[in-house]
C-alpha cells in the first residue's frame, strides 16, 4: 500500500531566535537584543504510532496558555511596585533600574508573545495537518483498492 506523507511542516527556525537572545552586561546599552518575529515551539515530525487531537484540544490548550501567560504578567507587574526610594537616589541609578525592569519584561514578553503565536499556529495547523493526512491516506487506500479490484 502506498502511503503518501504530506509535506506540511511548521517552521521551527524562528524558535532559534529566542535561544540565541542574550542579555548584555550593562543596562546602559540596549540590554536585550530585540526579538520581534517570535518563536515557533512546534515542528511536526513523523514516525508516531498514534497522532491526532481531540475536539477539546484547541480550547484546552488556549485556556492553559492564557492562564500561564496571565500568571507571569501578574508577577512581573510587581516589579513596578518595588520601592527604590529607601535604597538609593539619583538619576543614573533610576535609569539603570528602569532598564533592568524593561529588559526583564522584554525577555518575558518576547517569550510569551511567541508562545501565543505558537498556540495560534498549532491550533490552526495541527488539525489541518491531521485532516489533510487523513484525506491523503484515504485516497491512497482508494487507489490500492482499485488496483486490487483490477487484479481479480
Amino acid at each position, binding site marked *: 500500500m502506498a502511503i503518501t506523507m504530506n509535506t506540511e511542516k511548521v517552521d*521551527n527556525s524562528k*524558535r532559534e531566535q*529566542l*535561544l540565541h*537572545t*542574550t*542579555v548584555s*552586561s*550593562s*543596562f546602559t546599552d540596549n*540590554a536585550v537584543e530585540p526579538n520581534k518575529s517570535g*518563536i515557533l*515551539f*512546534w*515542528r*511536526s*515530525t*513523523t*514516525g*508516531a504510532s*498514534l*497522532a*491526532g*487531537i*481531540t475536539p*477539546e*484540544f484547541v480550547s*484546552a*490548550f488556549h*485556556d*492553559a*496558555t492564557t*492562564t*500561564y501567560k496571565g500568571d*507571569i504578567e501578574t*508577577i*512581573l507587574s*510587581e*516589579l513596578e511596585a*518595588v*520601592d*527604590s*526610594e*529607601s*535604597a*538609593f*537616589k*539619583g538619576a*543614573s*541609578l533610576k535609569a*539603570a*533600574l528602569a532598564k*533592568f525592569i524593561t529588559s*526583564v519584561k522584554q*525577555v*518575558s514578553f518576547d*517569550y510569551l508573545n511567541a508562545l501565543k503565536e*505558537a498556540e495560534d499556529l*498549532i491550533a490552526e495547523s*495541527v488539525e489541518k495537518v491531521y485532516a489533510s493526512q487523513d484525506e491523503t491516506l484515504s485516497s491512497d487506500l482508494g487507489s490500492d483498492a482499485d488496483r486490487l479490484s483490477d487484479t481479480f
Partner: protein
Amino acid sequence: MPTIRDLNYGFDANGVEKYLEEIKGIVLTKAAEKVKNISDIEKACNANWEGRAKEEFLENLKTDAEHVSEQYQNLYNTLVSEIQSVQASMANKDEALIED
C-alpha cells in the same frame, strides 16, 4: 539626621540590600519558577493531543522556558553588579571628598 528619602543623590546600604532581595524574590523566585512550570500546558496537551509533534513541542517549550529563566538570572546578576559598582563609587567619593 537625614534619611535616604531626604537626599537628592546617595544610597543606603541596608536599603540597597533589601531592594535587591525584593527584586530577586520577584524575578528569580516567582517569575522564573512560574515560567518553568509548564505543567498545566503539559496536562492540556497530554489529555488532548497525541503524537511525536506534541512531544517535540513540549520539549521545546521546556528548553525555551529554561532559557528565559537563565536570562532572568543574567539580568539580575548585571543589575547587582552595576548597583554595587555605583554604590562603591559613591562610597569612595564620599570618603575622599574632604581631606584630613
